[in-house]
Every structure is written in C-alpha cells, then in structure tokens.
C-alpha cells in the first residue's frame, strides 16, 4: 500500500483526492474487519466529511497540512468529541466525550482523516487484546494468533493494510509489543513529548501516546505532527516537536550501541535472540560500534511496574462510579449503585489491577510495596543514565516471543505480564523506544527489535531505526542466527 508520506504528497499536489484514498481504506476495512476486529467503530460519515474538506482546501489552493488526506485509526482510549470512546470496557457504555484529545485535534489540523476507533485490552491493561469487553482482535498475519496489546487493534489496522498510520498508547509496552507481533513500526516517545490530554488515564506517570506505521519515515512523520508542548497537559515537556525526517538518512556511523545484557537471557526465545544479534551486526556493518552493556536494575522493572501501574490505575479508575458518564446499574442507594456499576462494568483484569493497586497503597503496605517500587524506579533511571554515558543507544528484543495463540496466557496473569519484560523499563524511566520489524522467527511470524534512547533523543533513535529497516532480513528461519 501507499505510504502516508506519498499519499500526503499526492493529495497536497492535487494528484489524488482524499475521498478516493478514504474509499480504499473503507473498502479494505469492509473486506476483512468482520474477521480481524481491529475496529470497535468505523466513523465513515465523519471521515467522509473530513476528506471532503481536505479536497476542498486543495481545490481552493490551500495546503491541508503534512498528513493531507491520510487515513488514520485511533485507539479507542483517545477522546473524540461526540463519538463513542469505550476503552473496550462496558463501564463507558454510551459515553460520547465532550472534547477531542489534543492528538486528535492535531491530526485534524494536519489534514489527516480519522477513520475509526480501534480495539484494545480493557483500559489498555493487557498484552493480547483478549481483555477487551468486545472480543479480541486477530493478528492479520495469522488470525489464529493474538496481535499483541494493549493497542492490538491499532497495530492490526496498519498491519492489515487498512490504513498507513494509527495511534496507540504505551504504558508498559502497549505500542511496541503489538507492533513487534504484527510486523509494523511502533514508537513510545519520551514521556511528556506528546500531550496526554484526552487520553483516558491508566497510569499517569507511565502513559504515552505514540504512532504505528509500516515504515520508519511514516512513523517519524506522525510523531512530528503529534509532538510538542500542550498547555492543557501539565506533564507536557515545553519543547517543540523534533525534526525527525530530515535526519533519517544520517546513518549510524560513529554511534555507540549497547546490547542490553539483562534482555538477552533465558527468558527470551532463541529465535528472537538470534534476530537481535543479527540487528546488532547490521548496525555494526553500518559503522556503529556495538558492545554489551548492563542495566542491572532493569531486571526488577516488572516487579516495580506491577506495583506502580496498578497503584496509579486504582486511583485513576475510581472515577468510574456511575455518576457522571457511562454505565450506571441502578440501586436504592448511591454506595450500592457504585458497587453494582463497577462490578458489572469492569472485566477481570481491570478488577485485578484495581485491587492490587488498592492493596499496595493501603495503610501498612504502602512503604513495603509502593515506596519500594518508587525507589527501584530511581535505580532503573540511574542505571539507564549510566549506560547512556557509555553508549548513545541501546538495543534489545521488543517482546520475548513472536505472536502466541489465543488462550495461551489468559489463565496465568504473570505469564501474560512477562510479555512486557523488555518494554516496561522505558516506561519507568520515561525514555523513548521504538520497535522495528526485523525478520521472522522460526514460526514465520515477525520479530521486533527495540532501539532505546536517552530522554528527548528521538532523532538518534530514528536514525538507527531507519538503518535497521533497510537491513531487515526477508522471511526465513532465524535460528541459524548471525548470518548478518
């Protein structure tokens, strides 16, 4: 399919009409989404109105913007004014937000055409979309496998070729892991790079919105559009958007890249490990110096995360009580109404995390769990900062395995959580990371390699991503390894 960059160029030049581009996207969705269920909702009428406005602007000699006529899918935890926003939860049944998320407004201002809301694990809690109240999304490359999660619908919408771009949110790997499992590019920007205003909060100190794309250039284009300071988000970093695309061809000659020792152990499948080593060789062949480095505290990331994220979630999700929006289960008193609404409105994973967080924050356990986890977070930040004094970028697997089958990990929450062991530390540290497709595993399914960078250095991170994209091996078994 045509890249977002090429589509925008053609639409701005008047060579293609946005309405024709949209028709192709809607036809692709119509042809396959009953099977894949990437979308919770396709907003065809609103999309048509937006595409017509783009075409009118071009006809009038105006520039609709850098994403002119590009169809984009939105994770269904991004607020869209007047359009249902469900977080794939029953508890938001019928809710239509009274405002647009900042990223949604920025996309519209850049000429993009939002085509619908994509499926996710309920409130972005999960790694497979199996926690959606509306049923899972299927992996477009093998519909018997999960697409990853929580942004599985956004990853699948791009991997299936419906749209060239989508937005997800990443709290512990929820963009990068599904990108890896679906064979697309997925970016978690530096915390604070992209406004969270209008992103339904899961864990506020970890959540970050970012792009999915089929190419590194398209991911850069989308990130440039959504980045930048927003006075409406008090955690938004007062920096302008980074100029990523002009450096994509700069290469990695002279850069120092560290392979993270803690992420290449027994917990990582051998075929995935082989691809990561092959990616390291590709960077070395392009002139980078590659060494092994250690980020010791990162090995404790999962433990710290499963205290901090549920603690923040238990607080954020207290607002769902049947009073102001969404579901209300009627009862004769307000306290009973709260309880019935929350009990019927939330699924099991959300309940688990609310209870875990409530426990970790409760009197007597606060210091032991939450206090400890926050101190471990400090160690993780320090260890990353120490590593970045020796190297410019870090390299690791994105996910320990390729896409797994439905039901494989639903009975054991810890087994599901292990999916995010390599991605969680960047959320705790706030640093940016990108997953780039790099060949396939023994099962023929995509492998993603992760490039990690210091805070606000997305430019260098994207340079390495571009080199890896160009060097990525074609389909073929990985276990021979190291053939570079």
């Amino acid at each position, binding site marked *: 399919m045509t890249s977002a960059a090429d589509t925008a160029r053609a639409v701005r030049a008047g060579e293609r009409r946005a309405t024709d581009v949209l028709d192709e996207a809607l036809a692709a969705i119509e042809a396959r989404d009953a099977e894949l269920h990437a979308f919770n909702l396709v907003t065809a009428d609103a999309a048509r109105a937006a595409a017509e406005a783009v075409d009118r602007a071009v006809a009038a000699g105006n520039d609709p913007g850098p994403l002119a006529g590009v169809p984009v899918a939105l994770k269904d935890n991004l607020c869209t004014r007047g359009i249902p926003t469900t977080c794939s939860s029953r508890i938001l049944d019928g809710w239509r937000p009274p405002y647009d998320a900042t990223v949604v407004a920025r996309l519209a201002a850049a000429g993009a055409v939002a085509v619908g809301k994509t499926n996710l694990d309920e409130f972005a809690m999960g790694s497979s979309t199996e926690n959606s109240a509306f049923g899972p999304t299927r992996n477009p490359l093998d519909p018997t496998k999960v697409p990853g999660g929580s942004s599985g619908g956004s990853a699948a919408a791009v991997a299936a070729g419906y749209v060239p771009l989508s937005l997800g949110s990443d709290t512990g790997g929820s963009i990068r892991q599904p990108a890896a499992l679906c064979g697309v590019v997925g970016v978690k920007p530096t915390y604070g790079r992209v406004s969270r205003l209008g992103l339904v909060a899961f864990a506020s100190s970890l959540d970050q919105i970012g792009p999915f794309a089929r190419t590194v250039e398209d991911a850069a284009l989308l990130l440039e559009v959504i980045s930048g300071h927003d006075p409406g988000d008090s955690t938004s970093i007062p920096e302008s958007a980074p100029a990523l695309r002009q450096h994509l061809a700069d290469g990695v000659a002279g850069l120092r890249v560290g392979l993270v020792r803690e992420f290449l152990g027994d917990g990582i499948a051998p075929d995935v490990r082989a691809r990561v080593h092959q990616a390291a060789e590709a960077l070395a062949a392009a002139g980078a110096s590659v060494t092994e480095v250690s980020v010791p505290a990162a090995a404790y990331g999962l*433990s710290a995360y499963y205290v901090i994220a549920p603690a923040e979630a238990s607080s954020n999700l207290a607002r769902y009580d049947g009073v102001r929006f969404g579901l209300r289960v009627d009862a004769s008193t307000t306290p009973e109404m709260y309880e019935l609404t929350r009990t019927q409105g939330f699924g099991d994973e959300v309940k688990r995390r609310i209870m875990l967080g409530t426990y970790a924050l409760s009197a007597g356990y606060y210091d032991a769990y939450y*206090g*400890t986890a926050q101190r471990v977070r400090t160690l993780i930040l320090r260890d990353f900062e120490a590593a970045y004094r020796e190297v410019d970028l870090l390299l690791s697997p994105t996910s320990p395995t390729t896409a797994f089958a439905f039901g494989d990990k639903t009975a054991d*929450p810890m087994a599901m959580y292990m999916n995010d062991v390599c991605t969680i530390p960047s959320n705790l540290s*706030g640093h940016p990371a990108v997953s780039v497709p790099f060949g396939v595993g023994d099962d023929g399914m995509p492998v993603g390699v992760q490039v990690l960078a210091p805070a606000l250095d997305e430019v260098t991170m994207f340079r390495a991503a571009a080199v890896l994209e160009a060097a990525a091996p074609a389909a073929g078994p990985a276990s021979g390894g190291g053939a570079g």
Partner: protein
Amino acid sequence: MPAMPERLTRDDVAQVARLARLRLDDTELDRFTAQLADILAHATDMAALDLAGVAPTAHPYPLGNVLRDDAVVAGLERDEVLAAAPVAESGQFRVPPVIGEAP
C-alpha cells in the same frame, strides 16, 4: 526498607474489594486471591536490592509547578457534559439517596 508482608490472604482481598467498591463471589475471591498473591510474591524480588538512601521517583521527567496564564478561556459546554451522564436534572448530576431512605 520495610519488610515485605506475608502472603496475601482471602480476607485481605475481601477487604481490598470493599475499599475498591467491587463485589466478589466466593469463586472469584478464591481465584483473585491466588492470582494477586502470585503477583505480589513476584514483587518480593525487590527486597534483594539495597535501597538505603535512594529517593523515590514518582515521575520520570521532573517539572516544577506548572501554571497557565491567568486568562479567561472557555471550559466544556455544561449541557454537553451533562448529556453524557446516566441521569441529570436541573443542570446537575442526579444520584440515588446517599444515606438512608429516599426523601
């Protein structure tokens, strides 16, 4: 660093569910107790770390107090906000009685 507590009990989970306004039946209580205890048991590996003198991090990118300009800006439309409520009346959210019988 404070010691990690003993393994989570069924009573702990029942109490936490009450605090979080969730109702669990007996089967759920058993299942959640086992699952939550496993997750918390995994977290005890942090006890191996020397955290003496380590300050907690609440937020990855420290920013000072963030204040906007003191200028009048439009807020959300009240009617649009109330339209999203399960029950609204006279420009307000309506809830069942909070204490005791209905008036």
